[in-house]
């Protein structure tokens, strides 16, 4: 698999050190897109993002010891380079809490060979984790995250789809060592759908 990965290198990614780190985190080589789950799961979630928000490139996230959801989405999207036949997108979803605080989650979507859709995700909420490639379309995946927000008392607001090629044409999102915090707002610019929630017991 490593030879296959190296043959699909983009802008110097993956390097030998990148490949070694992937295998270290995943406990072996990535045989399928779903194996990327193990890489993300091996990286602890960064609970300190409110004090030190710093969106990472694929390489920076890969070699980091903590990541947020957006780091994980960028990392997973980049690792999907290893499967060039696999279609991929980003899904972002926004929510509001009972205290009025708003925050968003973003994941990397991928299409399996049977055209079913799954998601690769890292989150502070375990319920917002990966989705197996069992879904008919990306809207159905978005709905699974929306209902989990409802289950914990948060209101899902918006969601949308984009790609890193679309939102980051001016930055090397695979290898740049600098923070890419602008990605958060650029991805949010692609919110294209909203949730109307009604409760029959309200």
């Amino acid at each position, binding site marked *: 698999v490593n030879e296959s990965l190296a043959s699909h290198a983009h802008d110097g990614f993956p390097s030998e050190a990148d490949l070694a780190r992937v295998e270290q985190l995943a406990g072996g080589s990535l045989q399928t897109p779903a194996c990327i789950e193990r890489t993300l799961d091996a990286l602890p979630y960064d609970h300190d993002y409110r004090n030190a928000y710093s969106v990472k490139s694929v390489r920076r996230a890969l070699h980091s010891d903590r990541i947020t959801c957006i780091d994980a989405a960028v990392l997973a999207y980049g690792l999907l380079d290893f499967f060039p036949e696999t279609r991929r997108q980003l899904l972002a979803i*926004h929510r509001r809490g009972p205290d009025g605080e708003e925050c968003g989650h973003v994941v990397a979507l991928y299409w399996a060979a049977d055209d079913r859709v799954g998601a690769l995700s890292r989150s502070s909420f375990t319920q917002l984790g990966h989705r197996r490639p069992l879904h008919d379309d990306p809207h159905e995946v978005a709905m*699974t995250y929306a209902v989990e927000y409802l289950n914990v008392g948060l209101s899902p607001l918006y969601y949308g789809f984009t790609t890193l090629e679309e939102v980051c044409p001016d930055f090397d999102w695979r290898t740049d060592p600098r923070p890419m915090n602008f990605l958060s707002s650029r991805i949010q610019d692609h919110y294209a759908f*909203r949730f109307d929630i009604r409760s029959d017991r309200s």
Partner: protein
Amino acid sequence: MPDQDTVQDQLQPEPKQKAEDQAQPIEQIYRHGKFEIQVREIKAPVRPRGVLAE
């Protein structure tokens, strides 16, 4: 807290969009427990507060 499979089993889209309707605005209704969730296409740009970090 219900696990992922339980939650996904409870999703009941109605009605499922026909393939020929895919280009039309989405107006599906999902039922999840006491909640009725309707998805609508946003007509104007939105600018929510907060970052993508969850």
